[in-house]
């Protein structure tokens, strides 16, 4: 059980229909990621990194092939089932943070917990723990506009981990940050994988960011290379 990979991608292809043309960013791609690994994905723009990330996160489904995350074969799940699965198994971190502007840091982090049956008190305990983990306990009531980019991304990470998912996916999480903030985000991700056992798949353009990961893969023309 423990030596079977956490993510297992077998012969996965993904095509998009653009007007009459068909684009196939991923073709017969296979990949295994062990539990707890921090994996970096690099590659030129348009090479299909985000597409792959979305498949792993259950946001999109492959055109063919099969895909397991944990014990789940995502390729058998319907759209609604995927949504439900995401709510408890995945934390998604975006390049542009995507916090809800009208909600405070606290309320943003609370969003995934609203989908659970946790009481208000239990939610509070979890949110405070998440805020503490990302080092923003003193910013709970701040709105996103009152936070720096690095702080916003840390709130976004807190939102991604508050419901304790096994998998974190991050699409260029440091792409919009200065070096110092980027470093602290990378340290945080690294800690989440080392200390909390999260499996992380991170897309990045920055070789420095890739260095923080356990392993780096390059995606080019739909194929993975080392």
């Amino acid at each position, binding site marked *: 059980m423990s030596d079977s990979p956490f993510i297992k991608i077998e012969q996965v292809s993904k095509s998009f229909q653009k007007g009459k043309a068909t684009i196939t960013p991923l073709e017969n791609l296979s990949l295994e990621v062990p539990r707890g690994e921090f994996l970096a994905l690099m590659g030129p723009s348009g090479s299909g990194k*985000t*597409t792959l990330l*979305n498949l792993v*996160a259950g*946001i*999109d489904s492959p055109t063919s092939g099969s895909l397991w995350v944990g014990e789940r074969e995502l390729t058998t799940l319907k759209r*609604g089932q995927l*949504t*439900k699965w*995401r*709510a*408890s198994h*995945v934390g*998604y971190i*975006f390049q542009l943070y*995507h916090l*809800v*502007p*009208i*909600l405070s840091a606290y309320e943003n982090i609370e*969003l*995934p917990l*609203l*989908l659970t049956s946790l009481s208000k008190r239990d939610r509070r305990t979890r949110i405070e723990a998440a805020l503490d983990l990302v080092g923003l306990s003193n910013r709970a009531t701040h709105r996103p506009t009152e936070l720096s980019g690095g702080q916003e991304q840390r709130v976004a990470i807190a*939102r991604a981990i508050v419901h304790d998912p096994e998998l974190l996916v991050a699409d260029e999480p440091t792409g919009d940050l200065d070096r110092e903030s980027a470093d602290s985000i990378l340290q945080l991700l690294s800690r989440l994988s080392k200390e909390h056992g999260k499996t992380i798949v991170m897309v990045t353009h920055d070789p420095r960011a890739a260095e923080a990961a356990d392993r780096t893969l390059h995606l080019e023309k739909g194929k993975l290379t080392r």
Partner: protein
Amino acid sequence: MKFVSLALKNLLRNRLRTLLTVFGVAAGMFLFASVETMQYSLSTATRARADETTLVVYRENRFCPATSRLPEHYGPVIKEIEGVREVIPIQIAVNNCGASLDVITFRGVPAETLQDYNPELKTIEGSYADFTKRSDAALIGQHFARKRGLNPGDSFEAVGINVSVAGIIASDSPQDNNVAYVHLDFLQQASRVGLGVVTQFNVKVESADQLDAVADQIDETFRADQQPTHTRPENAFFAETAKQMIELISFTRLLGIGAVAAVLGLVANALLLIVQGRTRETAIFQTIGFSRYRISQLVISEGLLIGLFGGALGVGSALFFFHWNAFTLGNEGLTIALSPSQAVLLKGIAISLALGLLASLYPAWKATSKPLTQVLNS
């Protein structure tokens, strides 16, 4: 509950837009509630009641108090007819015989018999005794008094008739609340119809099932007379005599429907704009794990909140408006008090909520109609 507070926060995001929408809904529902108030007041005034025991004896083929003239001495004759309990002769004088929003109706009655005929009449201010003592005294209905700011001891003049207020009355019958009761002989002289002439007789019968028989008997009695009569239950009399007014009010129902349609369009449009303005945010919510159903729920909650706030504001202010203005619609000497009612309040708010729901269905679906990845990519 946790989702309703999220919906509320969403609405507060663009306060001006929400405020404008809520005011729009309020304006539409104000109109709707006003129309409903008219409809409701009318239907209570004209609905045939099973327990109706009042007949109105009018001159045959006459439809206006100015032209209906009957000899006062019919009264004792009617009183003798079997099944009749009370008879009261009434002379009516109005300042405006056509349809009007501001009618003053004088009802001349024998001062001593009014209380016997209508025991449910309560004198809430001033005194009944003062009314009987002074020949130019008037007992005025509570709506009438409120509308014109009259108190016992005041005098007022209308249609060239000068009276002094002796008391203010309240009654379960809406008509009583909108008129000024004066002495019959005083009104006959003041309005120059002459002594001995009345507009109508109101007749109380022993029991509701005798209504038609007594009516037929009365008309039969005076058939061969110079002044034949036409006798009907009070509500039917109202429905026939105030026909134009009733048609006019029925027509306003269209205005109510129009207002409702406008509110529907307004809310749907506002929600569609709201939803389109946050497609990306909706996609983020979906990424987090909010199902399409949850997202729809959020949008529908916003629609319901707009409906509720706008509806409460509009319907509430309409009812306040009717409460303070105490409008009386008059036609042919009959009046309808347009009075606020709980039924209209509940109906108005229920309809506002239904509109909020209906208007949000399409936006709720539209919010998540685009594929998630497409929105995230853009």
